[in-house]
């Protein structure tokens, strides 16, 4: 018998923005480095990645109660995914700066891996939040990873669309990641329903599902496939699809962090006999 669950009120839109921007920026760095390896990527792409990741972290910094102590975030690498996220971000910034400064492609490649690690840490941060049933589901990990990578690929395509040379493989990667994300979304949604989570979580996500289905899955896939048969309009079709993938990913993460985040609540359990009183 569960009762007394309330919506978490500690992480608001600022925390949500960290997951939105951090996922996109981290994976953009990873895909940028991967796309150009062993050469150095255009400096603008790396710079955009760092700005996006930095914006998310800055918003979180504004949310914490004691911003002057922010360096304490590095003190628990042994068990805290938040510490690991901060370390990954620091390494990402350091490697990217060093790579640009001394024109070292290997450093940019390593910065890409740090971006991927940053994304993974963000997913695990939610996974480790035992107080929120909608976050601690195992399916949150593939969802956050796949949507982060999709957003990164989408943003990379949009940025490349500003240049004369858009890599032909990029739309195929975006297509594959969008399919992967659709699978992850359905798995997450099914997992949430099966976990008998707090009742409002599935209700909130039912509303999100329709938006995700149309703007995050169907339309992008239609546009990306259509672009294959219409080379003349491919740039525009792919760009619209990429924008939809990015925006729908942000929408889903925003909804999960700010709206579907009911706390566990309290519960009465069937009492056990006296013999079972002592813990193992």
């Amino acid at each position, binding site marked *: *018998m569960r*009762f*007394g669950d*309330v919506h*978490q009120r*500690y*992480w608001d839109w600022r925390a949500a923005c960290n997951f939105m921007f951090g996922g996109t920026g981290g994976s953009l760095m990873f895909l940028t480095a991967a796309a150009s390896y062993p050469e150095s990527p255009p400096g603008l792409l790396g710079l955009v990645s760092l700005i996006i990741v930095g914006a998310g972290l800055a918003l*979180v910094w504004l*949310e*914490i*109660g*004691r*911003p002057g*102590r*922010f360096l*304490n*975030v*590095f*003190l*628990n690498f042994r*068990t*805290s*995914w*938040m*510490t690991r996220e*901060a370390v990954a971000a620091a390494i990402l910034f350091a490697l990217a700066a060093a790579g640009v400064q001394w024109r070292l492609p290997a450093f940019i490649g390593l910065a890409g891996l740090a971006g991927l690690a940053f994304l993974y840490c963000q997913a695990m*941060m939610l996974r*480790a*939040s*035992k*107080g*929120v049933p909608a*976050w601690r589901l195992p399916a949150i990990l593939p969802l956050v990873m796949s949507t982060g990578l999709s957003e990164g690929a989408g943003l990379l395509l949009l940025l490349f669309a500003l240049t004369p040379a858009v890599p032909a493989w990029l739309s195929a990667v975006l297509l594959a990641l969008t399919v992967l994300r659709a699978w992850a979304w359905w798995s997450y949604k099914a997992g949430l329903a099966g976990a008998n989570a707090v009742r409002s979580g599935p209700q909130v996500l039912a509303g999100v599902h329709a938006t995700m289905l149309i703007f995050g899955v169907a339309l992008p896939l239609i546009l990306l496939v259509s672009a294959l048969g219409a080379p003349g309009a491919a740039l525009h079709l792919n760009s619209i699809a990429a924008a939809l993938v990015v925006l729908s990913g942000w929408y889903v993460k925003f909804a999960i962090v700010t709206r579907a*985040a009911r*706390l*566990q*609540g*309290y*519960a*009465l*359990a*069937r*009492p*056990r*006999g*006296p013999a*079972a*009183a*002592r*813990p193992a």
Partner: protein
Amino acid sequence: MTRYVMVADLDRCVGCQTCAAACRQAYATEPGVQWRKVLDFEFGEYPDVQRVFVPVGCQHCADPPCMHVCPSTATGRRDDGIVTIDYDLCIGCAYCAVACPYQARSKVDRPAYAHGDEPTELERMQSNEKRIGVSQKCTFCAERIDDGLARGLTPGTDVDATPVCVNSCIAEALHFGDIDDPESKVSRLLARYNQFRMHEELGTEPGFYYLWNNRETARSQA
């Protein structure tokens, strides 16, 4: 070894909230912040309806998720099982608050008082600036326990070494003590009565036990 735990007898609790009031009196927590709460829960369908009062707060878990997620190591666990917060280390990220399955943690970002902008006399005397902007929760009155132990007292037995919520309970529904001592009151209660711990399926191993549905047991033993 010593592990301090709390036992709440749901068959005895009358929901008077004296424990919650005693806790707020002792620590002058900000408005809206209660380290000890007593929930009023009704269940069933007419005419078979039950009402139960459930004291809740930090469960001082043996495997506390709040401690694992804390990036600053502000949350710790003492050898005697009490989960602590170092207000000087905490950055106020509230990760612990979303990691706790017992809704035990609070964060207050700016000083707040019960009656407007000015603190009452008690609030002025007991205000703790260190608690602003950081995570806070029940401490099992660790200072009382430490002070009592230093004076040779026994937590759970001697009033001066026992949490104020337990001391204040008018129905003897709350008990405190060392579960590793087979002669302690909590050990004897748990050895005698039906009990459960909340959200055990999450693997947190809470140090807060609930006695419940023991009327029949007591009747048969009478």
